[in-house]
């Protein structure tokens, strides 16, 4: 269908003198990016459903099946024996954050291919601020998914201490930031959308399985010392433990330090990667582009 011609009428468009950006302007920008991410998420119902179904399948089927097979001894933060479903719930929260972080990476590659990313990157706000805002938006959506999962799990009988639902929030936020920063960094390395399958094979699955999400580290150590070392080198391990302890109102300081450090590292690398004079754009230029 062809669009009708546009008559040349013009509103008051007089260029203005620009005031310096203040805190209010930064907050407006942040709000806009977060709202857009939330709207996009709400419009993609399939994404929401799949993000909820994935951990629930693990909880309802996998955990129920393995309850009798995998025994979990009393390890901190647990003070008594816990059901296997209870044990893997923090790992499933981490799984949601991990998939969501990688989803945001996928969405950035998609936006870049479709051109939407350009509208963000030509904003006059500093690029580091734009990227952090984008991450915060991704984390907000991730945390909403985690709580949706926890509500369903609660009805299934998998319950944390009531206060735990509150104390876990900072751990979810920090872990979400780390995984979103990792996703953002990866998105700068992926040249095409088709290459995203590699992320599934080389990041999501190894990251998830080589962690205490499904089984305690001491069991991994007994089974394979090498795998145990890999688990210790995996940042996702610390995200899961941070969440696990936070559910019981405790802080695992090692996990907190590793997650915070990795967040800063991935974030700095992502900001450099998206700097037009140093990172992503420079490399994209070198590999060709539309002249």
């Amino acid at each position, binding site marked *: *269908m*062809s*669009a*009708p*011609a*546009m*008559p*040349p*009428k*013009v*509103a*008051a*468009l*007089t*260029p*203005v003198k*620009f005031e310096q*950006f203040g805190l*209010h*302007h*930064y907050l*407006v*920008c942040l*709000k*806009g*990016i977060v*709202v*857009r991410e939330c*709207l*996009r998420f709400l*419009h*993609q119902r399939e994404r929401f459903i799949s993000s909820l179904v994935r951990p629930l399948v693990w909880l309802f089927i996998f955990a129920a099946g393995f309850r009798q097979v995998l025994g979990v001894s009393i390890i901190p933060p647990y003070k008594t024996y816990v059901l296997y479903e209870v044990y893997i719930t923090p790992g499933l929260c981490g799984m949601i954050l991990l998939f969501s972080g990688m989803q945001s990476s996928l969405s950035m590659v998609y936006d870049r291919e*479709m*051109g*939407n990313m*350009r*509208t*963000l*990157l*030509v*904003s*006059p*706000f*500093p690029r580091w601020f*734009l990227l952090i805002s984008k991450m915060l938006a991704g984390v907000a959506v991730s945390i909403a998914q985690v709580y949706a999962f926890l509500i369903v799990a609660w009805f299934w009988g998998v319950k944390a201490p009531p206060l735990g639902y509150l104390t876990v929030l900072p751990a979810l936020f920090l872990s979400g930031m780390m995984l979103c920063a990792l996703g953002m960094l990866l998105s700068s390395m992926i040249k095409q959308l088709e290459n995203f399958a590699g992320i599934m094979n080389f990041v999501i699955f190894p990251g998830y399985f080589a962690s205490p999400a499904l089984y305690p580290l001491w069991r991994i150590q007994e089974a394979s010392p090498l795998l145990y070392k890999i688990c210790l080198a995996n940042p996702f391990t610390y995200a899961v433990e941070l969440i696990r302890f936070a559910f019981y109102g405790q802080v695992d300081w090692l996990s907190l330090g590793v997650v915070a450090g990795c967040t800063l590292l991935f974030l700095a690398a992502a900001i450099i990667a998206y*700097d*037009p*004079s*140093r990172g992503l*754009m*420079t490399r994209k*230029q*070198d*590999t*060709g*582009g*539309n*002249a």
Partner: protein
Amino acid sequence: MQHVRTSGAGEEVAALDVAGISHSYGPKRALQDVSFSIAPGTFTVLLGLNGAGKTTLFSLISHLYGTRRGSIRIFGHDVSRASGEALRRVGIVFQARTLDLDLSVHQNLSYHASLHGIGGHQARQRIAALLDTVNMQGRQHDKARSLSGGQMRRIEIARALLHRPSLLLLDEATVGLDIQSRAGILATIRKLVETEGIGVLWATHLIDEVEDGDHVVVLRQGDLVAKGKVADVVATSGASSIRDAFSRLNRIETSGIAEMSP
């Protein structure tokens, strides 16, 4: 094309000043020592065939690519060193469609307004005024996906004007549109130049979008081969019309830049 705005220090300030820009994709040269400037309130056509370097130049001006050689200034602000100040003064319509198809027209425009620190009542007012300007009033709750190509382009133009830029960059803004839509969009942009004093850099390969009073910058395979007013480019290239001049400039090797600025 000459600088026309005068700064407080008495120096002339161009809306856009491109000086000695070179760029390459690995070994492939995309732009070679390109220099030109455009004055506020003028309509400048960046002419070039596909692959001439127009989109590369746009990416450099909008700071999507880092400037490696040369400099780009927007109203005196260096795009590399003060990108924020420079980008606040520019509205950009990209060649590729950049609307979020899942969102409504209003949501798309609100998002862009927020990217310039404009929110709340001010944003709503601007959106309403600009939808009227581009003749899309009453469509703000339509999903972007439901719009035709021409309508999407109009929304993108409204979006580029939201933050009251003084310079508007449009990269092949009429590609894929029918003649009527092309004419309508072009007329609106020209009206903005005339009535609001906005400087426009209009990249195209369609020679029929050039009018006699325009300034033109002609790129060929990364080289700037002509710049100046249409009449001057036509005269210097010994052509009978701008169409003829464009054909000649793209077929014949030139010994240097045809400089026709008054």
